[in-house]
């Protein structure tokens, strides 16, 4: 089927299937059946995955495109249907169609230096594979290319785009500035969709977000155990996808509760993800390669497990349901990727100690200034603390930049260094 997309023979059929409720239900049932051996949290992800395009294309609720670091609570507060192009780009890479989407974007004047997740998202949008947005909201923190991509998409679809400008600092002044902006966002949504900020609904969403946060903290606590009960590869894929997309929803809470149960059972059985855990690693940056690759298999084959990922840290505090915008402003400002590099390094060192890792891999994604810019500073500090760190240059979405042999050599040499 995916070859069909690549060759352009069946794009119309694919677009129709994406819009067809029955087809999506059948596809979901088939994928659920084929992944029946996965843990029981996985079907929640599949529900989210298949329902997103179905509902988006049906236009029951206004569709809002949000960037990965826009709090997912915002669309749930306003009862909007969220679509996260960056997360969908990960999926496109996973099923092997990102190269086609990226080529399509490059053919439409997207430079090859633009982050491949945005090139992929643009290609999918240009091809008509994504639900059309009624409005777009993105933030300025972490992802350098996000606001340009979302601005272009707003031009392409003829809808409005609100860019939330995240201040560099995180003091009271910064918080007040951001709260003001979020009031503007509420007005922006109200004017475009007719949906106003409802205090009761907002409190419900924040309450759900807080409860989900609590479960996520419990999961992260369980992941400190030796042997590692959960794979960093899974942590960086659907768990991160649910983290970005569903916090503040019932589905999100159900997913993380289910995942907690799975990991708790593994811990009680003393079960690790590999038989003999020789090395515990920390995965740094919010990206891993999502196309078929053998990075985690190579590591696990060498007795090394990714015990935790920087991307899944719960960096924010519990929020006051009565003051939702203040809470969300604080959440965004708490991200350790905001502000000076020292803040991020401090958080990484804390995680390295907490998860008792003896090494770290910093995946430096092509086109990502925030990761590539800080990677060597992170590596140097980690090295001083006795935690060897591999800066692994690569690409998260574009398989054309992946070389199995070169990657294997770097990973094997790194693990040899840890011995």
């Amino acid at each position: 089927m995916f070859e069909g997309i690549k060759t352009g023979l069946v794009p119309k059929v694919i677009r129709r299937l994406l819009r067809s409720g029955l087809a999506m239900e059948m596809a979901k049932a088939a994928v659920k059946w084929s992944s029946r051996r996965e843990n029981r949290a996985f079907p929640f992800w599949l529900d989210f995955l298949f329902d997103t395009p179905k509902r988006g294309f049906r236009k029951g609720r206004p569709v809002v495109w949000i960037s990965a670091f826009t709090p997912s609570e915002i669309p749930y507060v306003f009862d909007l249907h969220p679509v996260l192009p960056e997360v969908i780009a990960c999926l496109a890479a996973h099923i092997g169609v990102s190269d086609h989407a990226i080529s399509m974007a490059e053919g439409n004047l997207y430079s090859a230096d633009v982050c491949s997740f945005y090139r992929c998202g643009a290609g999918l949008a240009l091809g008509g594979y994504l639900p059309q947005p009624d409005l777009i909201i993105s933030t300025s923190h972490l992802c350098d290319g996000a606001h340009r991509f979302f601005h272009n998409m707003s031009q392409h679809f003829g809808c409005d785009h609100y860019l939330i400008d995240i201040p560099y600092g995180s003091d009271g002044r910064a918080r007040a500035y951001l709260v003001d902006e979020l009031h503007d966002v509420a007005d922006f949504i109200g004017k475009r969709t007719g949906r106003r900020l409802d205090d009761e609904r907002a409190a419900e969403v924040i309450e759900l977000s807080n409860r989900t946060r609590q479960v996520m903290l419990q999961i992260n606590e369980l992941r400190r155990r030796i042997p590692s009960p959960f794979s960093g590869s899974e942590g960086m894929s659907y768990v991160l996808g649910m983290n970005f997309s569903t916090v503040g929803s019932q589905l999100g809470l159900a997913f993380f509760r289910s995942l907690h149960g799975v990991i708790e059972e593994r811990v009680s059985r003393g079960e690790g993800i590999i038989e003999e855990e020789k090395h515990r690693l920390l995965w740094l940056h919010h990206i891993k390669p999502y196309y078929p690759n053998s990075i985690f298999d190579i590591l696990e084959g060498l007795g090394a497990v990714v015990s935790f990922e920087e991307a899944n840290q719960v960096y924010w505090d519990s929020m006051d349901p009565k003051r939702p915008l203040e809470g969300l402003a604080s959440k965004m400002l708490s991200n350790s990727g905001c502000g000076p590099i020292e803040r991020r390094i401090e958080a990484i060192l804390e995680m390295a100690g907490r998860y008792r890792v003896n090494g770290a891999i910093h995946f430096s994604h092509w086109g990502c200034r925030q990761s590539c810019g800080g990677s060597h500073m992170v590596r140097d500090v980690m090295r001083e603390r006795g935690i060897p760190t591999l800066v692994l240059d690569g690409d998260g979405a574009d398989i054309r930049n992946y070389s199995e042999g070169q990657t294997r050599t770097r990973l094997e040499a790194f693990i040899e260094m840890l011995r």
Partner: protein
Amino acid sequence: MIVAGIDIGSLSSEAVILKEGEIMSYSIFPTGADTRKAAGMCMREALERAHLKFEDLAATVATGYGRINVPFATKTVTEITCHARGAYRLFPSTRTVIDMGGQDSKVISIDAEGRVSDFVMNDKCAAGTGRFLEVMAGALEVDLEEMGERSARARNGVVISSMCTVFAESEVISLIAAGCSKNDIIRGLHEAISKRIFTMAGKLRMERPITMTGGVAKNRGIVDALGRLLKSRIQLPEEPQIVGALGAALSA
């Protein structure tokens, strides 16, 4: 105990046989398209030179990009670890190893015990590798082996700005057409490659002494250019090409 190390690189393969830690023999062989065949022939030649048979080997460690395609290997170790071990064996005081091979270049930091403490490798670009020099030698119609000597005879400085192998080849052809001497162009190429390695080395906290290994270390022009940039004398093994295979044999 007799052990062997075999390094299957993209351009050449090397085998080293050790008896009680001392080199008995070695061989260097072009890898070609069939790495398995090259591995077998390279090892047979080293064994013949030592008057040994395969059965005499207690262990064989394979390294290099083709290490997983050596059917008779008892173990595989990466070329990063092997070059570090090999260089440390030859120069125990060395703290940095620069290995410039056929398809990649590496700068490796090693500690006082000879263990790898950090490393960087070139990215997917071929600049700064043996392949780059091979392509340029082709464009200049000179033998790869004579490039070092020719660069010593250069009189004028020529700056090569492109580091992409394809663009640099065009630039070289343009320089020839503009009447620049081949010796000057070769020196310019060596300076350009060395700058790239120097930049890569800057990502590590480089300590001295520095040892250079790999086939490119046979090119005196590169070694001198790199030495000038690093402001350091570079230690050279008698046969820099076999250091990876030596490290592999030492890992047995």
